[in-house]
């Protein structure tokens, strides 16, 4: 079980109930639980949806899954009236390598996810919400299912929630192992009992989503923020963060740091401080080589590029992404060629195969990088990798193709010399994989 960590620089919103037994409903209620849903209902049936959406817009909250789309705006796209039922779908298929924040949320504060789902439902006029957890999170799904049952027993879910006359149901769902299902349209396919392949957009899920009905799909962390925002007010939440990046975020800091962990930091917090102060610096006092700032799909930053604030816009400006907030720290001993190979091996394994540029591209990049890594690379291999990656970008139904191509391009561009050295027979760093590891196992 991931351990609870803390640091004085943390700004605590989401982690407020961590380590306090809030999975038990009485404890959650004692810690202001379910007060936000009741506050929303107290606005009156007519005013409530607008009030929730306005508060969410004011909060500046942007999607915590990776894309960073403004949550309030996403909700406002759902048509007011619809012939088909509307749905809320909570994405707890946390699979981005380097990310384990939703894991902590489900374990430490499951009712916050439930309450956020109820509020999202009230905002768009949905009667049903789904909370989908990846199959590997069975122990966490059990916690969620207990919490849902407790919420039904108290009348917080069901036909007449909080005595309001409004109905709302939550259905929990397990996945069965597939990174691609974390993509919103593949997630809907999976929930409909199909292979997790993406759908073309438009139509967007807010108009035609789950079972053909208007659907909002939000990451579990995004949803867990909602009750806090309603209680503290949109503006107050927004002010915690940086410009156009409201609030705080759960950052999973892993890899070569002294104190890895899930830390809640304000949006815009300096990356250098996150590594050297919050996470305690580089493991064993070694030198920093590189950072993957937002999960495996985000282009790498060199050690001289970490004087930057952790928000969506600042990371985008320097050619990377904040992604899912998974900060992976690499010390001086890491071979970037090896790290790039392990990354593409993952994407090649997980590509759902629906779009040819992604299916073939990830395979060719893996094959080419394997050759470079093993010392049989040709000079043109670097260009081949770049060419293939560039031609995957924007040519697939879903962002997976980009997610595989972007980190590859980042490694090659930022550490080109290292790739050239490998081709000339000069290896760098301390190898972590053997030939056998490359040829068998995960990624095959």
């Amino acid at each position, binding site marked *: 079980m991931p351990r609870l960590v803390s640091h004085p620089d943390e700004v605590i919103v989401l982690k407020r109930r961590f380590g306090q037994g809030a999975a038990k409903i009485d404890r959650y209620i004692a810690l202001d639980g379910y007060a936000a849903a009741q506050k929303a209902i107290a606005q009156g049936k007519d005013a409530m949806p607008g009030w929730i959406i306005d508060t969410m817009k004011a909060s500046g909250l942007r999607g915590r899954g990776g894309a960073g789309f403004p949550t309030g705006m996403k909700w406002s796209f759902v048509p007011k009236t619809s012939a088909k039922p509307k749905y809320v779908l909570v994405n707890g298929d946390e699979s981005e390598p380097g990310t384990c924040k939703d894991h902590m949320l489900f374990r430490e504060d499951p009712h916050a996810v439930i309450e956020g789902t109820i509020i999202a439902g009230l905002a768009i006029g949905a009667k049903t919400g789904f909370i989908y957890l990846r199959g590997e999170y069975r122990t966490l799904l059990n916690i969620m299912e207990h919490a849902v049952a407790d919420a039904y027993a108290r009348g917080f879910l069901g036909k007449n929630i909080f005595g309001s006359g409004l109905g709302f149901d939550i259905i929990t769902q397990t996945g069965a192992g597939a990174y691609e299902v974390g993509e919103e349209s593949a997630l809907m396919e999976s929930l409909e009992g199909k292979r997790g392949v993406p759908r073309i957009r438009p139509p967007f899920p807010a108009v035609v989503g789950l*079972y053909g009905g208007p659907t909002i799909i939000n990451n579990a962390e995004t949803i867990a923020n909602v009750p806090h925002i309603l209680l503290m007010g949109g503006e107050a939440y927004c002010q915690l963060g940086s410009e156009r990046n409201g609030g705080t975020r759960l950052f999973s800091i892993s890899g070569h740091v002294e104190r890895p962990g899930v830390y809640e930091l304000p949006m815009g917090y300096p990356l250098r401080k996150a590594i050297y102060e919050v996470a305690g610096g580089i493991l064993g006092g070694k030198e920093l080589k590189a950072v993957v700032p937002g999960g495996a799909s985000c282009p790498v930053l060199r050690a001289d590029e970490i004087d930057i604030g952790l928000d969506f816009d600042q990371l985008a400006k320097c050619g990377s992404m904040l992604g899912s907030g998974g900060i992976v720290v690499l010390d001086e001993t890491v071979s970037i060629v090896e790290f790039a190979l392990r990354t593409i091996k993952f994407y090649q394994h997980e590509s759902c195969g629906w779009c040819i540029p992604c299916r073939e591209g990830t395979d060719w990049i893996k094959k080419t990088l394997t050759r470079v890594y093993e010392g049989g690379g040709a000079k043109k291999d670097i260009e081949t990798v770049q060419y293939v990656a560039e031609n995957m970008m924007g040519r697939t139904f879903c962002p997976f193709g980009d997610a595989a191509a972007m980190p590859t391009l980042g490694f090659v561009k930022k550490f080109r010399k290292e790739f050239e050295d490998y081709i000339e027979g000069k290896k760098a760093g301390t190898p972590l994989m053997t030939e056998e590891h490359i040829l068998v196992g995960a990624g095959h």
Partner: protein
Amino acid sequence: MSTVTKSIFTPELAAYFDRLVTVYPLKRSALIPMLLYSQDEVGYVSEAVIQEIAKRLDLFDLDVRSVLSYYSMLRTKPAGKYNVQVCTNISCMLRGGYEILDHCKRRLGIEHKQTTADGMFSLEEVECIGDCCSAPAMQVNYEFHDELTPQKVDEILDEYAAEDRK
């Protein structure tokens, strides 16, 4: 009412499935949970499991097979009683994930996706399991074990073996 009169599952699981197919707007949504929960009980997704699930959901066997082949946790052959799944993805790799995997191979005397002769343990190298901040990590069945060292792995595997003898 179940469409299946003679279920291959325990009465508890059969009753759970009877209810599960009614909770969704479309009953096909029960397919992936049913496959995984069947596997938990039977040990793998057998032909009989495929046929019963297809019948319960009014699907062709082929529909079930098509979905089954997509999801990496689903298997069509038995695994060990304790399925040891070692993560070697980036965060775990940096903290010794491959050492842990190799240690498991030596200790259990098996390779990736193999099972010990006594059927007790199977081993799998897996992609990120979402325990990155306590890497290296593994799961045994659904339990997380992390901040692993070879010695800690030995203790964990000893505990499972002892649990089995009880």
